[in-house]
């Protein structure tokens, strides 16, 4: 797949995930599940930006890991703070 096609797909995926997170925040009455789902969406969106827009998918693995860890640690920490 060309990089341009990846970027276009990624863009629509990001918009869809954004709308989904707003919908989940509005509709789900269980706050714990809502926070968990919304933070998981943050991870999915972060992964798209890092791999596709920043083009780190084929970068040295340490750098990719470093950036990816940010979109894992922060949502996990936020979820943990709210849920425990």
């Amino acid at each position, binding site marked *: 797949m060309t990089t341009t096609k990846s970027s276009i797909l990624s863009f629509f995926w990001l918009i869809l995930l954004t709308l989904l997170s707003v919908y989940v925040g509005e509709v789900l009455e269980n706050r714990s599940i809502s926070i968990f789902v919304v933070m998981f969406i943050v991870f999915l969106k972060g992964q798209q930006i890092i791999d596709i827009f*920043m083009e780190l998918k084929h970068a040295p693995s340490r750098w990719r890991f470093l950036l990816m860890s940010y979109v894992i640690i922060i949502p996990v920490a936020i979820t943990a703070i709210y849920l425990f």
Partner: protein
Amino acid sequence: MSETTVDNNITPTSVNSSAKHSENRLPGDIAMWFFILAELSVFAIFFIGFAVAEQLNPEMFSQGKAQLHPTAGLINTIALITSSFIVALALQIMHKGQGRNAAKALIIAQLVAVVYLVVKLWEYQFLFDADIDIETNTFFTLYFLITFFHFMHVLLGMVILTFIAIKSAKGQYQQNDMSGFESGACYWHMVDLLWIILFPLIYVI
């Protein structure tokens, strides 16, 4: 003129070497990546601080969030994602040696980012009109601190995009050396990355 020079450099050999070059390579300048990591760390403290403060003052934060406009936050999210997407396309255009087209794409990306600036300023004005400011309570102190800090990063990102757009239009980036362009683009994507955490934290959950 300079654009033609860049186009002439695209031979099968240079395309192959460019493809090899892009494999297992960190885009942009390493100094920019350390700067990005530093910025992400500062915002990480803000995000964690906000979540902890909300747990300590759940009622105040719930009331505070109710006074915000989720639609404004959603518009800003879509604006920043779209702008980031256009910058990603601009880099791909630049890889094809089309500096002027890349510059045009960067200008469009900035125009989309202006939507974010206008909506954010409208939101601030709306709150000020309701006698809400940074001293109202802990929620609004953190709200203004975090969102205005991010706002300043968007402005800095736009200055950087303007700079690389001018250099692109002048044909000052070469096929084998567009580190400056990539660094600017990655900074802009970082601004987007921060907002996709900030938006659900402040507006959604």
